[in-house]
């Protein structure tokens, strides 16, 4: 073939280029994580890894499977919409192993966090000046936290 006469150097160059491309593909297959590009320009496996993180808050449905009596008390009161772990803190460990002490929330800190009177809070939200209202008497002397209206659920 006359056309390929004196073209040997071009073939060698093409061969070198092909070998380079091949090397690139092989190295790339090792470097790029296997799930990269599965859903988009990212490592698809990362989604499952993030979803596998452990939970700390068990969720009120879990609490209520054992503490149905408290759920019952709560359901009729002002705190019906307040989930258990809003006051009791994360309890997934206690839910997995009930022998783990869930601890007792400190009402002296908790109650005023929401109910201390402040002009910044919505007007229709129940708030008190704790000092004026109770004069140092603990909240739960009169208010049962699970159903706080006086007389509802009774003082504890």
């Amino acid at each position, binding site marked *: 073939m006359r056309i390929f006469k004196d073209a040997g150097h071009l073939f060698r160059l093409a061969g070198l280029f092909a070998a380079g491309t091949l090397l690139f593909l092989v190295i790339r297959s090792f470097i790029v994580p296997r799930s990269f590009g599965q859903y*988009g320009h990212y490592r698809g496996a990362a989604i499952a890894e993030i979803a596998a993180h452990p939970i700390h808050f068990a969720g009120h449905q879990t609490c209520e499977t054992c503490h149905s009596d408290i759920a019952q008390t709560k359901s009729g009161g002002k705190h019906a919409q*307040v989930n258990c772990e809003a006051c009791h803190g994360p309890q997934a460990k206690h839910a997995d192993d009930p022998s783990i002490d869930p601890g007792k929330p400190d009402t002296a800190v908790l109650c005023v966090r929401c109910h201390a009177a*402040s002009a910044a809070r919505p007007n229709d939200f129940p708030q008190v000046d704790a000092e004026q209202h109770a004069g140092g008497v603990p909240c739960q002397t009169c208010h049962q936290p699970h159903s706080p209206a006086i007389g509802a659920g009774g003082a504890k």
Partner: protein
Amino acid sequence: MTITRRQLLILLPAAAVAWESVLAGTPETSPNYTMTDHWWSMLIDIPKCIGCGNCVRACQAENDVPDGFFRTWVERYHVDDWHLANPQVISPDGGKEGFPVAKEDEGKYFFVPKLCNQCADSPCTQVCPVGATFIAPDGVVLVDQKYCLGCAYCVQACPYGCRYVHPQKKVADKCTLCYHRITKGLTTACCEACPTGARQLADLKNPNDPIHAFLKTHSVQVLKPQMATGAKVFYNALDGSVR
């Protein structure tokens, strides 16, 4: 067995292609959860927020957020009469332990909980040079911390200041909308801990989600709509002074 140079040249690319498909493996599947069936968002009902800081503490406990850094935080606005352009905003320690008592005066006060807006056209994912942050098929913006270089481009790109570089891991960190919870059918830690229901996780793809009825009957806004980020955290009764 001997292989000629010609045979080797034919075999090598074939082997490379085969190796690629082996590495790709089978896609991981999460039981009972189909990503494409969801499009997650959150509803923040400003008039319901009492500034207790429960969400901030819950988020830090759930996600091991280091002290001084926040995936969610609460800001307290004080707007004096008509001075909408100059609100006084405080957020002591992210509002984690609540706020100082405010005295009644001419102005108005309100709380604004903030978190990642889970933007559908998120600036943070666009600037990532390595594909370490991305929008998952269910609309949650996530960070692949094994892939992140810690260059912090995304921290600068986020118009809402929702990202930070983790002081120990040295990689970008942000709200995952409690991805490890919502994929198990639980709500986020902040929503679980909110005593007034001011925060509600919502699935826009679920026609039975109460958010649809809420959006129909309320004046709802997203933060910085002019930035066209496609933010999916919706604020009810958001004041014009909020940035």
